């Protein structure tokens, strides 16, 4: 029997998110993925940055770390490298991950740090009430893009793959079984995984862009998401204005902590009987 609620700090509920927000759906998907994999609650650390998405960790009954804006992956890198046995998850938003945290994202991916990163992409800065983000599609309205943004947006999954992530996928808050499946596979990948979840912000993105409420937004997501297998059989013009969902990349490689662990073993063995040096068992450098 499912015991999903037991993964929550129930005394912290209800959450602060707006009615119709997609972040709860993603948080629920993560918990279901953890539950289905039977992960030990005491060996999972969940880290977040700043923004609506990042408030999720406060509701989850694990060791949780709500960090500074954009830096969740850097904090998480420290945790994973100090305790490689822990399962480390980062919950982040599109602004947190791709703007202020963009540098940490590409380097965490490049190092293949064993972190499962779930990006709650609602295409807007929600916490500060509706400014455009690097994930806001060109032409859409934000409070800092009152005439529509002229900036181009990232394809986050392509970015992660190019930077070196070893597991990459995209789902949506409409395609929840897929989202759970991708998160499960991401958690099972030893190295750096990135799962983007396209979701709705009815309060700002939907309202400002006159898309409607949560139902209309979810319908929009449903109509514009194309499974990657189906897309392979479609013509480019059929894919115009659509976005792909599914598993995009899955090529496991040794994670950073494992590679560094091998280095430690080698160096420790080499210097096991050497005394002197800078301090204690360290050898003389001269």
């Amino acid at each position: 029997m499912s015991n999903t609620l037991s993964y929550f700090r129930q005394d912290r509920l209800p959450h602060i998110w707006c009615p119709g927000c997609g972040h709860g759906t993603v948080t629920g998907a993560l918990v279901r993925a953890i539950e289905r994999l039977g992960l030990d609650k005491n060996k999972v650390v969940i880290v977040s940055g700043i923004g609506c998405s990042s408030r999720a960790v406060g509701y989850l009954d694990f060791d949780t770390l709500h960090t500074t804006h954009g830096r969740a992956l850097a904090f998480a890198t420290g945790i994973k490298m100090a305790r490689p046995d822990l399962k480390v998850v980062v919950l982040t938003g599109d602004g947190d991950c791709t703007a202020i945290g963009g540098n940490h994202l590409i380097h965490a991916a490049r190092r293949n740090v064993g972190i499962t990163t779930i990006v709650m992409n609602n295409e807007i800065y929600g916490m500060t009430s509706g400014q455009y983000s690097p994930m806001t599609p060109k032409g859409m309205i934000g409070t800092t893009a009152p005439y529509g943004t002229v900036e181009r947006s990232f394809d986050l999954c392509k970015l992660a793959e190019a930077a070196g992530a070893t597991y990459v996928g995209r789902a949506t808050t409409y395609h929840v079984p897929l989202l759970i499946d991708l998160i499960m596979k991401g958690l099972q990948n030893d190295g750096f995984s990135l799962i983007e979840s396209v979701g709705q912000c009815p309060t700002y993105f939907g309202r400002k862009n006159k898309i409607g409420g949560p139902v209309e937004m979810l319908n929009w997501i449903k109509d514009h998401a194309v499974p990657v297998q189906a897309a392979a059989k479609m013509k480019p013009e059929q894919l115009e204005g659509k976005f792909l969902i599914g598993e995009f990349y899955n090529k496991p490689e040794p994670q950073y902590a494992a590679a560094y662990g091998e280095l430690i073993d080698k160096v420790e063995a080499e210097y096991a009987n050497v005394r002197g040096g800078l301090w204690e068992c360290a050898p003389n450098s001269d």
Partner: protein
Amino acid sequence: MTEKKRTVRLMQGNEAFTAGALAAGLKFYAGYPITPSTEVAELCSAELPKVGGTFVQMEDEIGSIAAIIGASLTGKKSMTATSGPGFSLMQECIGYASLCEIPIVIIDVQRMGPSTGMPTSPAQGDVMQTRWGTHGDHPIIVLAPGNVRECFDLTLRAFDLSEKYRIPAIVLSDEVIAHMREGVELPLPSEVKPVRRAMPTVPAGYKPYEADPDGGVPPMAPFGMGYRWHVTGLFHDEKGQPTNNPAVAEKLIKRVNAKMQRYASDICEWQEEGLDDCDIAVLSFGASAMSSLAAVRQARRQGIKAGMLRLKTLWPFPEDKVRKVGAKAKKILVPELNFGQVALEVERVAGFDKVVRVNKVNGELFRPEEIYAEIEKTAKGLKGVR
């Protein structure tokens, strides 16, 4: 196995910082290359794997301090080293570690600023930044070594104090001390007793921020041990959960800040010479104190009653000691490689009229005769008053 005898070695300050950190039990270093602190990173990359520790070269200094905070949360002693521009980038996360009470050590080897400044020239312009660089009222511990042996001692001490009080500790040095080589006799490992943070014993009912409201230090559980606690840079209650409740917020910020004053007498250290009968006290720190001491001794030889107070702790500021010195001495000279940052504190504590600022800001260290000239001038002024 018989333990080796102590030996004297020639080492530079940056080596001594690293040795001190290793002696404290450093197990995690994250950093970004920057002159004049880079040797610390290089040495950590070589030495840490030998003791099962981890070195990570991060993508920038923000990532570096974030990573050491993360590592410290697992119970590992963690450190970074940097210089002015990198130290500026770390400010937000210094505030995070202060509020969340996560022990970390930062070595800041000062160079001329602002901005890129003069990367290989000494300065002491980060004094106020170490205290107030991050936003909001917060506690901080800042130690300033005055020679290479002290680079070892004060790094070890920075770890001890940070672990004990759960306050970020900064070792504030400068290019001269960091690159200066001296013959140093380090203690034997058996003579070093590093302090480890207090930890809770039972996960059930653990309240991570429950402590005596008057500056108490709560025990800290490592991540991954079943405590399942929450850490946030938002103001939080005793359970670590965010709150907007003014009473809870006030209690937290008062307790966290009270730590700095409550334990000041344990944290503050200095070295003095000839203060008992002095007319002119010279108060300095770091590399400037080396030139100052030479000048004070020269003044004594010339019959001027000069004394030396070298601060090893800058923050919390050793108010009581400076007040006492101010009560006896007629003037306090404050030589520093900036436009007067420690002088501001001395003026506050000992009185504005008491202080003579001695400043140098061209990327060069004081020559002893420059400070001596100021002592002599001040002495003549005092005679004139009589």
